């Protein structure tokens, strides 16, 4: 080839070969990530020392020397003789209070059954590969769970369920005429049925399949966190979707109210809403109305979470290209169909990280109810446990346990959401 010519023709192609050994595997990773420069090498060594100190000097002995079988903190201290060690006896002694609050001891099987049922009920919602028939359990779960946890006759939750089914039947009959007719008609029929059922059943409904009633103030511990967290999250998702769509609506009144609601709720701290639920709401209700405190708290937390979820979903809706709306429209899909089949599946998928963020935050925020003197996990620790003479002065063990419980749940939610994101990934970017 002469110097002036640029012509070149490849006669045979180069076969692919393996990368050099120093450029692959563990060695490459360690070199690139831990010892890529002098500064980084020093930092790596310091970090390893810090981890060693933390694990083997601080936490390790504290857990290893831990005492699990004493009746009070004083006994623990005597046994330890000044050595490092945790007094975990408080957990073994008071686990029932931490988990169930003041729930009657002989009825622990009821919330436990409800918890197991909850796992069965959530499974088909969380994992699309499970048989769809399981969704029947999901539909019935709220009513069974209410009956199990609060007790009383099964007629009350049953009448609520029948009212909802009647309302749905009426809705599906009328929805062809217009969505508004179906919606209002369904609600009217359901409310009418509940009023009739309320009159028929009266103050003391017949005790069919009745379980001993449990007062709301006796429901506490981690169970209360679970109840509030699960109920409020399940309710706030549909409300949040409705609010997000409302905020995008072309109807000015719906848009106006959605914006006002979202902006108001987001501008107010949750703790104020909880105080409103516990104190102020009583002024607005008729004196004889015995409006359960847990229900009041649930309403407030649901409103709070749905405003946040609405904003997260609005972000997802805004991220969709206009073309998706137009393609759905151009095929003749109506508003409800295009939202349900095209827009929301995609918008919700984009919103998963944000929704999970709100969900995890909300679940942890359920401990705030301890401030309005409800005995959830934290309330139990702060009140009935630490204030006894036996366990006064114990913090690390109790709050560590609470932190661990919440961490397991929240980490589980987070891992599930990441798995779900991978499952739903169809764009192959």
């Amino acid at each position, binding site marked *: 080839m002469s110097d002036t010519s640029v012509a070149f023709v490849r006669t045979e192609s180069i076969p692919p070969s393996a990368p050099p050994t120093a450029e692959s595997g563990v060695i490459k990773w360690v070199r690139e990530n831990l010892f890529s420069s002098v500064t980084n090498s020093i930092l790596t060594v310091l970090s390893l020392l810090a981890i060693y100190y933390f694990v083997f000097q601080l936490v390790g002995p504290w857990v290893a020397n831990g005492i699990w079988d004493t009746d009070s903190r004083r006994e623990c201290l005597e046994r330890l003789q000044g050595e490092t060690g945790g007094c975990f006896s408080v957990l073994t002694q008071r686990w029932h209070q931490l988990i169930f609050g003041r729930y009657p001891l002989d009825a622990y099987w009821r919330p436990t059954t409800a918890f197991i049922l909850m796992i069965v009920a959530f499974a088909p919602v969380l994992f699309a590969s499970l048989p769809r028939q399981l969704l029947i359990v999901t539909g019935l779960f709220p009513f069974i769970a209410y009956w199990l946890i609060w007790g009383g006759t099964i007629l009350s939750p049953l009448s609520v369920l029948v009212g909802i089914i009647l309302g749905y039947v009426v809705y599906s009959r009328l929805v062809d005429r217009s969505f508004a007719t179906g919606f209002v008609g369904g609600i009217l029929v359901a409310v009418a049925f509940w009023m009739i059922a309320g009159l028929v059943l009266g103050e003391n409904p017949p005790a069919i399949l009745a379980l001993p009633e449990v007062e709301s103030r006796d429901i506490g511990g981690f169970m209360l966190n679970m109840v509030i967290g699960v109920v409020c999250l399940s309710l706030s998702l549909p409300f949040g979707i409705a609010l997000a769509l409302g905020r995008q609506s072309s109807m000015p009144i719906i848009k106006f109210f959605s914006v006002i609601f979202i902006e108001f709720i987001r501008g107010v701290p949750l703790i104020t809403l909880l105080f409103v639920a516990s104190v102020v709401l009583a002024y607005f209700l008729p004196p004889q109305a015995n409006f359960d405190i847990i229900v009041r708290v649930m309403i407030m937390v649901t409103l709070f979470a749905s405003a946040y979820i609405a904003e997260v979903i609005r972000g997802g809706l805004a991220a969709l290209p206009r073309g998706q709306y137009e393609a759905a429209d*151009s095929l003749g899909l109506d508003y409800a169909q295009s939202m349900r089949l095209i827009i929301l599946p995609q918008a919700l*998928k984009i919103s998963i990280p944000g929704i999970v963020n709100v969900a995890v935050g909300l679940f942890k925020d359920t401990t705030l109810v301890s401030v309005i003197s409800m005995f959830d996990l934290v309330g139990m620790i702060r009140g009935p446990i630490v204030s006894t003479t036996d366990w006064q002065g114990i913090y690390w063990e109790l709050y560590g346990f609470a932190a661990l419980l919440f961490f397991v749940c929240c980490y589980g939610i987070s891992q599930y959401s990441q798995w779900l994101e991978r499952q739903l990934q169809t764009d192959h970017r």
Partner: protein
Amino acid sequence: MAMTDDAIAHMDAKVSDEVAISIENMNKWYGTFHVLRDIDLTVYRGERIVICGPSGSGKSTLIRCINALEEHQKGAITVDGTLLSSDIKNIDTIRSEVGMVFQHFNLFPHLTILENCTLAPIWVRKIPKKEAEETAMHFLTKVKIPEQANKYPGQLSGGQQQRVAIARSLCMRPRIMLFDEPTSALDPEMIKEVLDTMIELAEEGMTMLCVTHEMGFARQVANRVIFMDDGQIVEQNEPEEFFMNPKSDRTKLFLSQILGH
């Protein structure tokens, strides 16, 4: 893309006197900006119309008004004998009769190719799933990608995606097809496969309105070419006359610019 004279004659035979779309004195504004001015257009069944013009001339807006993706403020649009009003039921009826293909395909990325094609027939036409799938496979075979049916749009090339978009519209058995710059977002080697599909559709007598810059396509398939500028129809004619003997100065300038390079 060469077509025989026979085919063209065959296609011409299918144009009837029946009016498919009639647009009378239609005007549209974006705010105070007058996008479409006094548009009068009658499209007969089986006609293949190509609309061209410089960007911003309102050609996309015009065909988007026909299935009410854009609202017009004045004048009347009648599609298949139905006057387009602001009533949502009326709009949905027209939309289900008029297929639309977009520049950016707008396939639904969370659904498989087959699901993309069966969704509207199942939910809008209330056709049983099995039957809808058979129809979908029929049209996917027609656009020559039946083997991709269970993939997701993101796994297909641009040309393949656009052909799926055409099949998706056809599954609704529309009487009119609108194409909004269907090849503008494609690589040169993919343009041909999409145009071939459109030519085949034209041969079968589909009423087509096509916004495109593919003048070769216009020359071979269209039986009318419309030139728009400044929101107005400046000139319309049979393709041969339009290209060989343009009357207006603006048409001449436009043609010299796009054919000259």
